[in-house]
């Protein structure tokens, strides 16, 4: 497969919710390609449709106009092929299952054997640095550890596409920095394609190879920024002029989107 094979390809994508107060244009005229191995961040104020776009990719919402392909097929087929792992804003762990059993949940559903489950649980726990916590229940872990467990769960069945909806939004900044660093390493090691929703500019710039700036009413893409940062990114890279310049461009893009409806 060529380097720029599109994992996600959206053309004139639109989604309109019919509500009692009239139609709400959650997404309008979105054109976007997510290449294989890309780390794409979606950033914008609330209501800009970034989460909705992720949910359309995941077939949790249906678009109402335009086309979208995931892995060259419809989102529904992609979902049925178990093409992606989804990480929600909250960890969404089942409280009655241990961390191990939570990671095993998708594996059980997808019919992996006991031995395969055991091997994958071990491997993914190591990927997110949670070795030794498999037998704990979710409430015994901190918020950051719970979120890592939910990432492990999304990685367990080896989907090539990882959809992350503000996974670190509820965590404090110190934990967040740490998890961002780990996530980058993980992405580097596993070579997955990641779509990442955030409302933090530094987070988006630090993580991404491509930043999609969105704005609300109607939800649309206002700017797509290809990052010039190297793949190898220590936390200190956030103080380099290059980083600040990209951050500046993102901020300008967000401003432009805002002035539109004022």
């Amino acid at each position, binding site marked *: 497969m060529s380097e720029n094979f599109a994992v996600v390809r959206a053309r004139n994508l639109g989604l309109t919710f019919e509500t009692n107060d009239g139609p709400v244009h959650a997404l309008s005229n979105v054109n976007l390609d997510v290449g294989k191995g890309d780390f794409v961040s979606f950033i914008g104020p609330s209501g800009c449709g970034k989460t909705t776009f992720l949910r359309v990719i995941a077939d949790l919402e249906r678009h109402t106009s335009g086309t979208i392909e995931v892995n060259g097929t419809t989102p529904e087929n992609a979902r049925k092929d178990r093409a992606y*792992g*989804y990480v929600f804003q909250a960890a969404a762990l*089942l409280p009655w299952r*241990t961390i191990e059993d939570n990671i095993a*949940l998708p594996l*059980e*559903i*997808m019919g992996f054997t006991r031995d395969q489950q055991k091997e994958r649980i071990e491997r993914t726990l190591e990927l997110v640095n949670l070795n030794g916590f498999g037998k704990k229940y979710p*409430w015994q872990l901190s918020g950051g550890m719970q979120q890592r467990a939910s990432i492990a769960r999304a990685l367990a069945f080896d989907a090539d596409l990882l959809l992350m909806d503000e996974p670190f939004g509820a965590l404090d900044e110190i934990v967040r920095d740490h998890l961002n660093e780990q996530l980058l390493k993980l992405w580097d090691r596993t070579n997955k394609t990641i779509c990442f929703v955030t409302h933090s500019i530094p987070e988006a710039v630090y993580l991404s190879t491509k930043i999609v700036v969105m704005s609300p009413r109607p939800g649309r893409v206002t700017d797509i920024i290809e990052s010039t940062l190297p793949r190898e990114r220590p936390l200190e890279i956030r103080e380099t002029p290059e980083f600040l310049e990209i951050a500046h461009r993102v901020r300008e893009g967000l401003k432009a989107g805002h002035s539109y409806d004022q």
Partner: protein
Amino acid sequence: MTRPSFLHDRLLPILTVLIAIIAIWYLCVVWLNAPFVRDQAARAGTPITFAEILPQTFEQERPVLPAPHQIVTELWKTTVTLPVTSKRSLVYHAWITISATLAGFGIGAVLGILLAVGIVHNRAMDKSLMPWVIASQTIPILAVAPMIIVVLNAIGISGLLPKALISAYLSFFPVVVGMVKGLRSPDRLLLDLMRTYSATPAQLFWKLRWQAALPYLFTSLKVAVAIALVGAIVGELPTGAVAGLGARLLSGSYYGQTIQIWAALFMAALVAALLVSIVGLAHRAVLKRMGERP
């Protein structure tokens, strides 16, 4: 932090209330039974002092209100000293009632769970069934019970089953309500999660909904087992059943055997406490297996 002590935190408050109740009870015994002693003395024409009345109020054969020690004596006599096979043994009567209770509870619980599953998964059932489930409980069971017994008797069904059906009629309700709530308790996020895995409806049910509903189920079962007992006793009343706690209550009231009535009432309360605690223990065991926060 001091460790919670069983004596101080559990036993003492309960004992305090118990002692207060017993004290008030004895006062009522004197107050309610004294007129009878006074009437007897008046009829015999002998003057009687309060000091003489007092002990007699505690030892009547058919008191208006039996004293606690009389009930305890009766309970002791009819449970421990009599053989279990005796027709006067309270253990025998209690067992008759318990067997109907458990049968009814079982039927009610299974029916309740099945109805709840139907209601949660089928919009038509939700709309059509739920109002009837609620309406069923607005009919006074005392009015329905004799009809159920009589109708079933007419088609040749008697004994345990009619009573069990009345128990089931009462006990399925809390199970339906609790399970509907429990099966609907997983939030949007978890349902979305299962959808991202393309889980089958069966997997969604067993791995998510059923597990989430278990705590609700046990809370409902505790209520259900208690009212199943009420149902079984009510089922024994209208037909003049010959055995069971209901029968003891009825025959006691026919012959003015107040001590027997109260002993049967206490036995019923003990059985209820026992049944509820057994369900409670199962509840705790399940929650523990589900990794509940201590």
